[in-house]
């Protein structure tokens, strides 16, 4: 039996409301809130980045897994905001948790599905018997250009998953990937902010790949939406995961526990992994979960999971995602946000 033996998430404390961003750019906040189904988003503190978020999420995963970190055989961080262009984020994470030096380490990139890529590979290595435990993290301090629609959603956060074969809390029953070359969102080298292809990011990109991956895995597993208790799809805003869930035949009740984007924003590589963590926070033994990531460029990874009795033993050993979202919020104005996100360039 191979699956998740520990999971954890981390949510920064700073928040900015849609109204605060819209006020600066002369935009109509109610139409953004209604159109994108967004209320507010997380903002990383100036001393937080993909590495620090990955460390805190992993510490929470380790509290639930209760394993010796030295036995972790692979450490992967998926992100599109790695602090270094050249030097891995994962080495710092591995050093902090005490997994070095006998460990395989790599950083993954694939827009917003870099986190699920790491999960895919870590799970595969455990299943192949090449490592005892595998660690995969999806985390980002997402970039969105000032005034761009992305700025209302680009948030910060992450989730970590430990894979193993003993004391499994959710088995991985099936995996599936669906990928084509689709230039819907990109960031060129040396550019601060990503660009996107407007409405092309919708039907030919997000919806095509998420439905392609979800339908593919359900066909492979011989399952239908009615066989699942919960579904998590990538959340670039509040609207897309609701719409794609409905297109696939899922109900609002199946989507709701992992639907975080209205109050979290889009944590890019952390998005669907955080939705999965939030769903595991409330799932019961025997529940079936479908997770579908999406990364521009474009591709979707899908996982079918079944929750085991072990979930009740570990669920409360680390903070729940929604509890973190609700606790210690600090609302900031746009000026502070611009400073925190280095949107203001100072003289040398």
């Amino acid at each position: 039996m191979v699956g998740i033996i520990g999971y954890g998430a981390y949510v920064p404390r700073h928040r900015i409301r849609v109204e605060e961003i819209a006020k600066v750019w002369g935009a109509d906040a109610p139409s953004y809130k209604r159109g994108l189904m967004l209320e507010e988003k997380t903002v990383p503190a100036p001393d937080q980045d993909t590495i620090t978020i990955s460390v805190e999420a992993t510490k929470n995963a380790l509290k639930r897994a209760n394993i010796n970190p030295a036995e972790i055989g692979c450490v992967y961080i998926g992100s599109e905001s790695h602090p270094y262009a050249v030097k891995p984020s994962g080495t710092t994470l591995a050093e902090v948790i005490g997994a070095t030096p006998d460990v395989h380490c790599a950083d993954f990139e694939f827009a917003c599905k870099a986190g699920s890529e790491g999960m895919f590979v870590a799970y595969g290595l455990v299943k192949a018997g090449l490592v005892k435990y595998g660690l995969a993290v999806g985390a980002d301090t997402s970039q969105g250009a000032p005034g761009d629609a992305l700025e209302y959603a680009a948030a910060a956060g992450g989730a970590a998953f430990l894979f193993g074969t003993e004391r499994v809390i959710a088995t991985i029953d099936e995996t599936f990937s669906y990928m084509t070359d689709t230039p819907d969102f990109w960031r060129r080298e040396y550019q601060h902010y990503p660009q996107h292809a407007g409405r092309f990011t919708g039907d030919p990109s997000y919806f095509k790949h998420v439905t392609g991956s979800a339908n593919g895995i359900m066909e492979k597993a011989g399952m239908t939406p009615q066989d699942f208790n919960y579904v998590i799809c990538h959340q670039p805003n509040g609207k897309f995961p609701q719409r794609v869930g409905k297109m696939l035949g899922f109900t609002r009740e199946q989507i709701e526990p992992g639907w975080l984007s209205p109050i979290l924003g889009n944590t890019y590589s952390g998005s669907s992994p955080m939705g999965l963590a939030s769903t595991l926070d409330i799932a019961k033994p025997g529940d079936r979960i479908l997770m579908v990531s999406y990364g521009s460029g474009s591709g979707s990874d899908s996982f079918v999971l079944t929750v085991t009795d072990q979930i009740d033993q570990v669920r409360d050993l680390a903070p729940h995602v929604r509890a973190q979202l609700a606790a210690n919020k600090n609302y900031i104005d746009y000026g502070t946000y611009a400073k925190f996100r280095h949107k203001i360039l100072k003289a040398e």
Partner: protein
Amino acid sequence: MSTSAKLKREMPQRYRMEAGKCTTCGYIAFPPRSICPECQAREFDTVILPDEGTILTHTVIRVAPSQFTDEAPYAIAIIELGEGARVLCQLVDCDLEQIAIGDPVKIEFRRIQAEGKSGVLFYGYKAVPA
């Protein structure tokens, strides 16, 4: 000394909060020492400090060293972590007017400083309100 070498050498305490516990008298040395200041013994066990504690004392830095000017004003505090272990670190994500001695805090992994725009990044521990 190269900053990379310094960063690497300090990783055990900055990354994992590894302390030395005197095998003779139990004194916790953080950062680790070669000789116990209490009993002069030279044998230490490596222990990991807990990530929760309370504020023993604190102050607010308003005129900061050059590499921290963008962060000013900011708080630094001595945190009591139990068994006599204390750490000096920044206290972040907090209202500077609301900090009080005895408040519970949690230790989090944060970026400490960056060596200019192109140098190495220093990471370590800071405290946040629990």
